[in-house]
């Protein structure tokens, strides 16, 4: 199972085993990782599962859809080049070892 590390703004790290096919967002919700809100439940209607992907891992993540790019305009914390909606990061073998940084705020 791919391992994903969530890094909180204070530097605390949580490592989860994310089942293949499960999103980085859903894994955080199920395991009670604070800092992922996911208001719309993964329908890409909000931007409250925003994360920053470790920059040198960006090329391992799936490409952004136009919908995701549009919705990222709604992030409560600053949008950066490595901003992603974690509902769109679905666990695959390539994502093993992914590190995502949680923003200061989601709302």
């Amino acid at each position, binding site marked *: 199972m791919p391992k994903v590390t969530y890094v909180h703004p204070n530097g605390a790290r949580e490592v989860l085993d994310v089942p293949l096919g499960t999103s980085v967002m*859903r894994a955080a*919700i*199920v*395991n*009670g990782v604070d800092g992922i809100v996911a*208001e*719309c*439940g993964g*329908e*890409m*209607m909000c931007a409250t599962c925003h994360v920053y992907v470790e920059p040198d891992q960006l090329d391992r993540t799936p490409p952004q859809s*136009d*919908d995701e790019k*549009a*919705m990222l*305009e*709604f992030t409560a914390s600053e949008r950066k080049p490595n901003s992603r909606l974690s509902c769109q990061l679905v666990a695959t073998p390539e994502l093993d070892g992914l590190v995502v940084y949680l923003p200061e705020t989601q*709302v």
Partner: protein
Amino acid sequence: MPDPVVAIIGAGQAGFQAAASLRDTGYAGRVVLIGDEPVLPYQRPPLSKSYLAGRSGVDDLWLRPTEFYAKQQIDLVYGDPVTAIDRRQRRLHLASGIEFSWDHLVLATGAACRPLAVPGAELDGVLTLRTLADADGLRQRLNETSEVVVVGAGFIGLEFAAVALARGSAVHIVEVTRRPMGRVVSEAVSRFFTEAHIGWGAEVALGTGVTRILGAGGRVTGVETADGRHIPADLVLICIGVIPNARLASDAGLAVDDGVVVDEYLVTSDPAISAIGDCANFPTPFAPGRVRLESVQNAIDQGRCVADRLAGRPVPYQKVPWFWSDQGDLKLQIAGITIGHDTSVLRGDPADRNFSVFCFRGGRLIGVESVNRTADHVIARRLLAGDPALSPEQAADESYDLRAHARRLPGR
């Protein structure tokens, strides 16, 4: 002195959010969240979309896992309906006999499917879709179903129809008005979705109601319409809107009028009681009068608004409403409230299955309906957060940069 208690009746999206947000704001008193369904708080939108279609499972529905409630010190009571509110003693009575006292009460009681009052409505195979139990029943039935009649062409009916069509059922949609989703969308979008469903193979009967549901041996066999047609069916879904659950409130003497009447702070006629979500009837700057909205956005933002007030930061509720619906390969996104518009313009071409309808009243943009066009939807939400200062001509001109327009507006 004992800790103050906020009791929340209703553990749907709004009630859950109020509880969670109270803790987010640092509220230190006791929080009691009471639901009548026998399961953890869950998301309803997938019930008529991915969950119904079998693309997601029940574990994807829970808003938070069991441990969340203990960790957040939210006393979650589920499967136990509240039977009465005692305002004088500030107590709640639950069906099991449990009682809770409260200092502030939040009504998040939601809504229930409007029943179709015709002969045969009690037949086996006549169903509704609101709860997880409803969706589980429908998922099961869809495997054994070949002919479906959907009564009512609102969001739920059309979402269900799209799922049933994709599974190969014959689908007949019967809508009493001439306009599917007419309560929420413009004529152009209504027509577009009607044609889409016909393209997917649905039969659509508009301007006629169901007058009788036919059966044999206690099982549904079809429906009879007002214009005299008999349509065979082994499953009939009744989705003709909802009725807000306001009985507890009216029994307790609170003002009720199409939902529990609240002010701009979401306070009922009793200052110690708030109402939020599908059951709340509230004044809004996004419509001429009062509204009651059935949406995730409204549930979440109202839950948060009440939590902020109870934590000592009262702000009037003025969030831009937004909605969505997934039907087949079409995603409909709505920002604002478009009913009551006097002018509408198209941006993009419906033939491309990628367009928006910008709706205006008195020259001012009041809402935007987008089909497979998230970028417009995102901009619309931003525009509507203040004076959009957008003309119909600008909206219709695809070479006019809406994003740049939004950036020029103060605060957006």
